[in-house]
């Protein structure tokens, strides 16, 4: 490089370099917009009482963690979300991930499946096998789970609105000889939260949502005791645009609706409360995310204790899975995303998560490739095995900043919860549109901050470079042939069923849905045994509730 620059150029460059040398933070706020001080001291946590407000890990109010020995007892589950193309491709990828050392399974379903329709739905042609695996039949579920020891590993079914995927899972497990009492895993089953993930409310209207959600909880309490039948999904709400306290407050609002419905149906609170778990995001403000989750633990424990009168310690624990924030990642300079994921994963671990999915660097281009998801697994493994952070529970406790910020998060979460209560609960907050306005407003605010430079994103509005790195990333592709093969197998499957037996089973399911007196799982599982598809199970239950078989009006019931 030529240093004998003309005086003007040299001075201008020198000025620029000095500006960077003297750079300061653009603002002094958390990600969610709360001003923070230059430093924190005992004054900022005056009145903080160890026993009342923190206590040891594994002791009420669980601020410091839900188990006494936290990761010394068991590391968090390394659980990568996985699914694409077909049940067989998804099964192959699951085994790849297990070989790479992930410690739990996490299955993503394609959007039509997550909307409750089959892979031959006429309007779903372009969306089959994208974003997750299609599951239309029991055969699909069996193929997806082939070779996986369901009694020895935890499996998450990442579906918000299609509770009956659990029925398919159970039938598949039973056919392989597994004991329901030994099955371990989670189904999100956060049916009320469907619209926060972009699904139409009318796919699972609120009354049907509550019925399905609690049927699943009830069935699992009685038959699948080690299963987590409901995980309120804060991750997707956060991805849609809310800030940290809003994320937690909205999940608590939803959780209360499920608790209230469960109680209305006569499920004892001590059985019910521990079955409500959570999924949270981990965004880029390292300390805010840790404070958010510590506050969530303390607030949940106090809320269940004070408002629901629960005393059983097991029923007071905020148990959660973290998914690092996909929307924090950039298309530009994608390798940078691994640094972001690392920051986020570390915050989730220091916050004491039970389970963690780390995103891959190609998040903004497509689903993870084998090489990109391997690095995501390695990220967790390096943190678990090399950083030594898991030897000590809640290591940040006592930090003046972290405790002050935890208090602040709790305060802000409570404000929003009070507002939701004033409106009559989360369902009302959704029906009035208020909840979605909050999401939209916050999303727009964040975008404007990025475009004005107030919110810096490296590679996007700072340290911008060309698109060479972007072009070099191998992007995952879903083969059209594989998707077609899957659709063909669905056609074949439908031809081989005994229509008489199927008809009886589906009509019985519909009648039970109409009468609303019994849990729908046994009849749904029976219909599945008789060859019912996911769309048929869903459709007949919908009809029982007075809704059209297919919300988009493109498919008629077979009988």
């Amino acid at each position, binding site marked *: 490089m030529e240093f004998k620059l003309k005086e003007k150029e040299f001075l201008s460059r020198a000025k620029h370099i000095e500006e960077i040398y003297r750079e300061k933070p653009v603002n002094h706020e958390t990600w969610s917009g709360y001003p923070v001080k230059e430093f924190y001291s005992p004054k900022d946590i005056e009145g903080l009482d160890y026993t009342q407000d923190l206590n040891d890990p594994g002791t009420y109010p669980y601020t410091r963690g839900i188990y006494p020995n936290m990761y010394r007892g068991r590391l968090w589950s390394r659980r990568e979300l996985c699914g694409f193309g077909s049940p067989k491709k998804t099964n192959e990828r699951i085994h790849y991930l297990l070989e790479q050392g992930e410690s739990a399974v996490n299955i993503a379903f394609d959007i039509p499946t997550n909307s409750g329709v089959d892979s031959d739905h006429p309007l779903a042609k*372009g969306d089959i096998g*994208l974003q997750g695996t299609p599951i239309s039949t029991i055969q699909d579920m069996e193929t997806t789970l082939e070779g996986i020891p369901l009694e020895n590993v935890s499996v998450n079914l990442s579906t918000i609105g299609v509770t009956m995927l659990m029925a398919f899972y159970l039938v598949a497990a039973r056919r392989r000889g597994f004991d329901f009492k030994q099955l371990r895993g989670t189904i999100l089953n956060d049916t009320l939260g469907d619209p926060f993930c972009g*699904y139409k409310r009318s796919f699972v209207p609120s009354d049907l949502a509550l019925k399905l959600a609690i049927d699943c909880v009830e069935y699992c309490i009685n038959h699948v005791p080690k299963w987590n039948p409901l995980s309120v999904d804060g991750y997707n709400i956060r991805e849609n645009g809310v800030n940290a306290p809003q994320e937690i407050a909205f999940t608590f609002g939803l959780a209360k609706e499920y608790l209230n419905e469960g109680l209305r149906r006569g499920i004892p609170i001590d059985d019910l409360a521990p079955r409500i778990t959570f999924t949270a995001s981990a965004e880029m403000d390292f300390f805010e995310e840790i404070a958010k989750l510590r506050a969530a633990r303390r607030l949940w424990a106090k809320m269940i204790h004070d408002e629901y009168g629960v005393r059983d310690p097991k029923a007071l624990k905020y148990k959660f899975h973290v998914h690092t924030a996909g929307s924090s990642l950039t298309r530009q300079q994608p390798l940078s995303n691994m640094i972001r994921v690392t920051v986020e994963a570390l915050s989730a671990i220091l916050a004491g998560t039970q389970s963690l999915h780390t995103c891959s660097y190609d998040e903004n*281009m497509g689903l993870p490739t084998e090489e990109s998801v391997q690095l995501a697994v390695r990220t967790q493994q390096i943190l678990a095995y090399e950083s030594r952070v898991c030897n000590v529970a809640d290591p940040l406790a006592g930090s003046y900043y972290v405790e002050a910020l935890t208090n602040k998060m709790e305060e802000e979460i409570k404000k929003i919860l009070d507002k939701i209560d004033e409106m009559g609960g989360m369902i009302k907050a959704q029906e009035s549109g208020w909840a979605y306005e909050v999401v939209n407003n916050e999303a727009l605010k964040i975008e404007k901050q990025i475009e004005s430079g107030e919110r810096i994103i490296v590679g996007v509005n700072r340290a911008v470079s060309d698109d060479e790195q972007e072009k070099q990333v191998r992007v995952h592709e879903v083969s059209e042939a594989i998707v077609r093969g899957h659709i063909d197998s669905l056609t074949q499957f439908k031809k081989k069923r005994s229509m008489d037996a199927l008809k009886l089973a589906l009509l019985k399911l519909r009648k039970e849905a109409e009468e609303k007196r019994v849990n729908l799982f046994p009849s749904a599982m029976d219909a599945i045994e008789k060859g019912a598809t996911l769309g048929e199970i869903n459709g007949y239950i919908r009809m029982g509730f007075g809704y059209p078989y297919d919300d988009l009006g493109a498919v008629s019931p077979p009988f």
Partner: protein
Amino acid sequence: MDELHRGKKLRILLGKVGFDGHDRGIKIVAAVLRETGYEVIYLGKYLTVDSVIKAAIDEDADVIGLSFLGGSHVIYSREIVEQMKANGLDDVLFIVGGVVPHKDTGVLKDIGVDAIFPPNTMTKEITESIDQKIKAKRA
């Protein structure tokens, strides 16, 4: 915003085709375009190619903008462009936003998509591009 087409504000139809419901991006684009001064018709989600074309005709749209996340951008863009040609919508701009990997940009351009806006695109780029391309198309 540039000289208006035929003296009117540019009419921009926005929406999502198929089952994908991820709409954070398109809602932001709709809001910003409205603030900039365009006439935005947000059709929503779960649209079909036919319903988009019909709306473009009924609403006298100058621009059709669709958003994709899951990977269905090639399949639906192809159908949209075919239908636009079949219905004489030759002076209507067709723009696509969302998760479109670099390797597909050329594919979409070949199909006839006028502009592609992948993730982390600044909205200013979208408005500038629309103005530029409408001018060029109708020159």
